[in-house]
């Protein structure tokens, strides 16, 4: 959609009438030098997927196993904590709760920061 002639004003006239800049005489040659350099450069060594895959699979399996173990320990601890909860005094409970709230707030902050970065990245504002 082009702006209609009736809508153009002085600002449009000023900003649309720019002097034409002619590239300097050696510009095309210097661009071509860069392009030739790029073309002559050896291609980057591809990532050795075949060699790395077994190791990466092993590492992923190890991490998964650790995560499962940690979760099991965590669940067991939680169960132990909930049974011991009745024995904890009120002050202790308050501290545990506030730590939980702080952790939750930090998590929410991190999420919102990541979301904001992602949105800014999409719009290309910065």
């Amino acid at each position, binding site marked *: 959609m082009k702006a209609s002639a009736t809508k153009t004003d002085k*600002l*449009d006239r000023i900003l649309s009438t720019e002097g034409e800049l002619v590239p300097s005489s050696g510009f095309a040659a210097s661009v*071509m030098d860069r392009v030739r350099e790029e073309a002559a450069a050896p291609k980057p060594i591809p990532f050795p997927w075949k060699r790395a895959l077994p190791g990466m699979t092993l590492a992923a399996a190890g991490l998964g196993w650790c995560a499962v173990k940690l979760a099991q320990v965590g669940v067991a601890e939680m169960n132990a904590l909930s049974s011991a909860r009745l024995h904890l005094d009120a002050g202790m409970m308050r501290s545990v709760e506030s730590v939980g709230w702080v952790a939750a707030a930090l998590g929410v902050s991190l999420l919102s920061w990541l979301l904001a970065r992602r949105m800014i990245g999409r719009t290309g504002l910065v």
Partner: protein
Amino acid sequence: MERVLAGDVNAFEGIVRRWQGPLVNMAWRYCRDRGRAEEMAQEALVGAWRGLKQWRREGSFSTWLFALAANVFRSELKRFPTVDVSMEDAPEPARAASQEKDLAEHQSSDLVRRAVLALPVRYREPVVLFYFHEMDVSATARSMGMPEGTVKARLARARALLKKRFPQLEDQQAATELTHKEA
């Protein structure tokens, strides 16, 4: 183009010669520094060489090239911003004295153009590209990879900011409109 896509480096020179002018002029509008404009245009052309295989032929080459160039210029200016003044500090053009009207007119136009660089980034780029694309909102939106509505809204805001800074633009527009109505 087929030869370039097949990897013929020398054939790319035709593309460089065809598009060097538009890209240098586009870069100039982003930074208003001739030397830097050429550097940025060179980066864009080298980037075009690297990414030519990503060009999908359903779109025109120029659309793809301008969008790529806009990305390159945006990143370059993010890395090394132009030294520009804020909108408040942008000098206001003096009223034209009758005997020096042409010179004063030229200088004030230049100040308005430079004030575009003092706009916040989100408004600056739509203005730069809108006037580079001869006031074509669709082309501006394609170069920025943004919906036309967003571009229009940002343009309106940018124009309002510029007219607030240079109220005489508004006065002269009103005067022109009045003359048109009377005619």
